[in-house]
């Protein structure tokens, strides 16, 4: 994923932060991105691209989401997962249960919840020496 210069619109907000709908996305390093609210300096999230680090991550996008975000093709979808940082990477987790999906054609996004048991809200981010070995 390349740097995205446009403004991301989360019309219904990110769960718990419904007031904030406009975000920017900037790359931090190879794995992490910073999603920052344009409306408040206090609101921001570290996110990652799950397909870079998980071999098999499957999400099903409902017809409701497709309709709301006006998604016509799977190639238009960017998936990001919110990271809960600990003191270090070993104590950090990633929320695989509630990814952010973004239509890169119109920059509209929303947070969905996957009703499957295999994906955790607090999935350990780091187990081995390399972050990419973890999943």
């Amino acid at each position, binding site marked *: 994923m390349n740097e995205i210069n446009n403004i991301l619109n989360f019309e219904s907000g990110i769960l718990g932060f419904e007031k904030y709908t406009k975000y920017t996305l900037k790359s931090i390093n190879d794995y992490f991105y910073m999603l920052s609210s344009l409306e408040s300096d206090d609101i921001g999230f*570290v996110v990652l691209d799950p397909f870079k680090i998980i071999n098999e991550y499957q999400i099903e996008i*409902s017809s*409701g989401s497709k309709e709301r975000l006006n998604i016509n093709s799977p190639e238009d979808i960017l998936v990001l997962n919110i990271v809960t940082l600990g003191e270090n990477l070993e104590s950090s987790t990633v929320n695989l*249960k*509630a990814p952010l999906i973004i239509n890169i054609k119109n920059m509209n996004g929303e947070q969905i*919840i996957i009703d499957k048991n295999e994906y955790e809200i607090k999935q350990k981010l780091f187990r081995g020496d390399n972050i990419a070995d973890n999943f």
Partner: protein
Amino acid sequence: MLIISRKKGESILIGDDIEISIMKIDDNTVKIGINAPQQVTILRKEIYEKVKEENKKALQNNIYTVNKSIK
């Protein structure tokens, strides 16, 4: 809040296109069936609440702290 009592096999209609049926009743578990249009999101509330909580914990706006944690 509207409160209605229903028996097994009975239903509730919400609007034109949502139907909630009581399928099975055990001691403290009710099995319900929901018929709704595909674009309606149906979630177990506790999962929704947990995601909200986790988002709050994940809140991070300080790039210096971020850089320290992900080093």
